[in-house]
Every structure is written in C-alpha cells, then in structure tokens.
C-alpha cells in the first residue's frame, strides 16, 4: 500500500471549560490517500468540525490536542497555541467553510482575496496573479469572471460566495481539500450545483477530499469512503457502498433510516429516540447505548473498539447488525 497523504492517528481533543474538561474528540484515526474522498458524517457535537480545525491547525483555545498525531505524507504536523508555521497547511491542504459570508473578508474584493494567496504562495506578480484569479473563478463556474473579480462578497449570492470560497481554497493548488458542511446553508438546487462542481474538480484535478457533513445524501453523491462520528468517536468506517447498503453500527442504521425518503406517507417517520449524551457525563461504555434499541448490560461494560465486520468495513459495536437487521 502506498503511504496515505493525510493520516489522523489516535487524535484526542479536549476543551477546558468552567464546567469541566469536555472530551470533544476521543481517539479518532483515519487516513486519506491520493485522489480519495472521505466523508466524515456526524451530527452536532460529534466532533467532526473540531477534527477539521485541528488538521488545519486552526484549533483555538480553550480547545487543545491531548494526544495523537496528524501526519501529512508521513510528516507530523504541529498544533497548539504557537506551533511553527509549516508549508503544508494552506499549501497542500486547504479548507472550505460552511458560512462563506463569514469566512470571506467583507472589505476586500473577491479577486484580491484570491491574488493574496497566489502572491504569497507562488510569488506571482500582481498582474499574473490577477490573471490566475480570473481563471480560478471561471474554473468554479462563476459567470463573467473578469468582471466578478472586482466584486465584494456582499455582491455575490450564497451559491456564488461558496464558489468563490472554493476558488480561494484551490488557489494554492492543494492536494487535499477539506470541505466543512459547504452546502448546508444553500438551497437544494444550488447545493446540487456545488456537489456537481466538487465532484468535477476532484476528477479533473485529482484532489483528495475530506468532506464533513451531517447529510448522508451529500456523502453518497461525493465520497468513496465514509467515517461515521458519534460523540467524539468514529463508530463505523467503510466504503460508501458497504455503509449505505449494510450499516453495521445501530447508530449508522438509525441515521440512514432517519434520512431515508419514506414511501409510506402517513406511516411514522423513523428517527432515533433521545438525544446525544452530554460529553461531560458520558456513559461508561458505548456512548450510543442509551439510545440504542439493541443495547444490553454488556454495552455499558466498556467502550467498544473499532473491529472488522467485513472487508474494509469496521464498526465499534459489540453486537454489530448483520443480515436482515442491517438491510433497510
């Protein structure tokens, strides 16, 4: 096997709060290879965004990495309050955020926000950078890019802003693009456009993609592999085909059922009872046990490790779903 580009290895992240130390991420590991797309799925509080921030070196106090490592092509990356600047983040890895309006500088034309990156990264002359900025806007499908480079973010619509964010992220010619819920704030038809754009860019540029979302539909459209996050742990990983057709963890199965389109209109919608646990008062064993209809006393005995349940398919459950249970 070739060395993966990005490796996240037994990452633990905690937040120091007045109420206590919140274990937001508890021993998460995954790897992304060249050209691969991994979907990190989870609901609010699952730790997915904190993982992305840590990979980018953007984790802020009171958050801190307790232990674990993030490696790029085998080389460990720093984090913490004052780690030395590296030439990976913003070069080989870049990120697209959910809220493009908040992420863009409202006082600078969009073009300037792209040329900034180009001048810094590639030492381009301002003129060459401007030319390249127009190319990048065209690449992400912004019409009339030559005029649009001069526009300010507020002159762009939501979908166009997200495209501009992607153009900025691509300016440094990254190998890995992290996308943190980039379509969540968008309308359905605009979301479809952005998904289409990301898939197209991934194929054309050979990008690796770490796609973070709560929406399993988006993952199905974009990702080869899936990692499902619950209360700071990955509870299931595998190929998209495996996970969607044969979910092994009851949480994954519940999530799939919740988001499945119901044919039977007046039947009850299936969700998952209860709510995710307070991270300050985690159950002793499996964090999902209190909401799990399959749970028994053994589930509270210890935190279940990720174990193989099939080829390239792992689940952190002592009694993973098999056969008919897993089939939707």
């Amino acid at each position, binding site marked *: 096997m070739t060395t993966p580009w990005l490796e996240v290895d037994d990452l633990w992240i905690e937040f120091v709060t007045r109420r206590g130390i919140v274990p937001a991420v508890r021993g998460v590991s995954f790897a992304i290879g060249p050209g691969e797309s991994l979907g990190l799925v989870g609901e609010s509080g699952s730790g997915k965004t904190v993982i992305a921030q840590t990979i980018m070196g953007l984790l802020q106090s009171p958050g801190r990495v307790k232990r674990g490592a993030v490696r790029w092509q085998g080389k460990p990356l720093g984090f913490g309050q004052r780690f030395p600047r590296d030439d990976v983040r913003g070069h080989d890895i870049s990120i697209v955020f959910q809220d493009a309006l908040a992420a863009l500088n409202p006082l600078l034309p969009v073009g300037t926000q792209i040329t900034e990156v180009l001048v810094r990264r590639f030492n381009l002359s301002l003129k060459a950078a401007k030319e390249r900025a127009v190319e990048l806007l065209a690449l992400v499908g912004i019409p009339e890019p030559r005029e649009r480079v001069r526009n300010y973010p507020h002159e762009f619509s939501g979908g166009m802003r997200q495209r501009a964010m992607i153009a900025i992220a691509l300016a440094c010619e990254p190998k890995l693009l992290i996308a943190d819920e980039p379509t969540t704030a968008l309308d359905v038809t*605009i979301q479809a456009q952005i998904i289409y754009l990301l898939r197209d860019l991934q194929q054309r540029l050979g990008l690796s993609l770490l796609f973070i979302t709560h929406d399993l539909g988006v993952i199905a459209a974009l990702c080869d592999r899936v990692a499902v996050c619950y209360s700071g742990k990955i509870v299931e990983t595998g190929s998209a085909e495996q996970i969607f057709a044969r979910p092994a963890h009851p949480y994954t199965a519940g999530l799939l059922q919740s988001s499945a389109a119901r044919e039977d209109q007046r039947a009850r919608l299936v969700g998952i009872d209860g709510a995710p646990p307070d991270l300050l008062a985690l159950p002793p064993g499996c964090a999902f046990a209190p909401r799990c209809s399959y749970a028994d006393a053994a589930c509270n005995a210890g935190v279940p490790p990720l174990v193989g349940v099939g080829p390239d398919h792992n689940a952190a459950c002592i009694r993973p779903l098999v056969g008919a249970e897993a089939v939707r």
Partner: protein
Amino acid sequence: MTPPIVAIDRLKVHFPLRSLALFGGKKRVARAVDDVTLSIAPGETVGLVGESGSGKTTLGRAILRRVPITEGTIRFRDADITRTDGEELRLLRRHMQLVFQDPYGSLNPRMRVADIVAEPLLVHGVARNAAEAAPRVRKLLDLVGLPKDAAERLPHAFSGGQRQRIGIARALALEPEFLVADEPVSALDVSIRAQVVNLLQDLQAQLGLSYLFISHDLSVVRHISHRIAIMYGGKLVEIGPSKDVHAHPIHPYAESLLDAVVTPDPVRERARARAPLAGETPSPIDPPPGCRFASRCPLVIDRCRTHEPPLEEKKPNHFAACWLR
C-alpha cells in the same frame, strides 16, 4: 366538501423598497408574494416548498396577519380577516399560531419553561396569574412529551429537539385550530427531526389541527403533507396531492427541485450524470414579465418570456402554471 379553515385568494404582499426616488429614480417593489390562491381544509397539512426568496415565509406570515397585505383576501373559517385589526386581530391570533424555525433564538433564555408556555395564556387573559395557568402548562408539557420537571428549568437545559417541543407547547397553549410551522425541523439534527415530525402528526390526529408546513426539505414535507404547494419567485407554480407532486411533478421547476434532492444511495447518486439546474433564484424586485422560472427553465419558449402562465388544473386536483405541460 367541508369549507376550508383558511382560504387565501389572489394574495399579494409587495414590499416597497427605500429607493432612489429622492433622486428621481423609479420606486422599486419587491413582490414577495404575487397573486397566490390557496386553501387549507380542517385537519389538513399543506406543505409549502420553495427556496430562499421564493416568498414561502412571507406567505405564512401574511396568513397570520403579521405582514401588511397589498391585495387579495384572506379568510379564516368564514370571516374575511384581510383587514381585521385592533382587539379583533388580537382575539384572532388565539386561533392561529406560529412555530418558529430556530429553537435557540425563539425562547427567552431567562424565562423558565413554565413561564414561556404560560405567557400566551396570560397575555390573552385565559389565566390571570402563573398559578392559575399551571395546570394547563402541565397538561401542555405532557402533550408534547416533555418531562414534568421541565417546567421549572430554563431553555438552555434542553436539547434542540426538546426546545422545539417547548415552542410547540407554547403555540398550542391557546388551543389554535391552525398552525404555521416555518421550517420547524431544519435546525435539528437528522436523527431528532423524526421526533418532532411525529409529534406534529400525533397532535394533528389528536386535536384536529390544520398545518401550513413550510420547508425546503422535500423528504419531510412529503412525509407530513396531504398536499404540496411549490413556490418560485413569489408565485405558486404547482400544487397537488403529495404523492402526485412527488411521483409526477408537472412544472419544470418542481421537477428540477425534486431532482436536486440527494438521497443516501451511492449507486443512484453516482449514476446521476445530468448537470443540475443552472442559475439562481431570481430577485423578487421588479421581475420581468412572463414566467418567473423562464430564465432557468430548460424547456423555455418565447411565449414564456412574455406571457405569464396561469395556474391550471392539469390533472385531477393537481394544478401547475406552465405553458408547456
């Protein structure tokens, strides 16, 4: 047929924009809701779907008389409420209530849950003080599935789904017949949404409520609605039985909208070769003549750009506004 509980007829809500009129410029108008006719039967749920800027929220607020009406009429039960005001409007509000989207922003963080739910009772003089409201509050919290001790706590002690239950309890306090639920589950996690949707359905069965369920999430709308109405650029472009609209959409926009929904099925999603609908929702300010969807429509013909298609019954109970279908 039973008379509708809510009937709106050729409703227009236009917002004048502060413009450059001072400098001799033309007065501009945002046509948020433009000539919409719609009725809701007792015990019925109409799902109202549209993208941001389509006018769906404004339509919901207009029915509740929370935005000024430009033209057209709104009838509630048998009364014309288009121009109702003052004390009469205040009394009317008891019968029609709103469930908000954001369960974090819509509850006062300093008020106990009991006081939040009791507030409408006190405002409308149903109860004279908190003590008098207490039994009713207990009943309401029980109705929406909140634990008994919830009454004494503050909103921050509750998760998003539970907060939405508090919001629903408050909306139900005055025993309304009609609820406008504006994106009531959009802010909730996927696994929690079902709890709130099921609660709304149970309450409808129990209390005979009518809903206008506003959402951009077609899968939820399809599940909860008897009929689906689709808005685009301030216009109603399609309305029909939920199943029909889903299985056989008529308007090209309805088709694109349904097509744009991603499903958790990698095989289906990978096979999707077609490029999604291009372009963006048009501005409601001074729209061009003709069909509002003409600029994005893959089937557009010349006539669409000059003449506005009327909403017509294309199949039994299934209406659409399109020249071509």
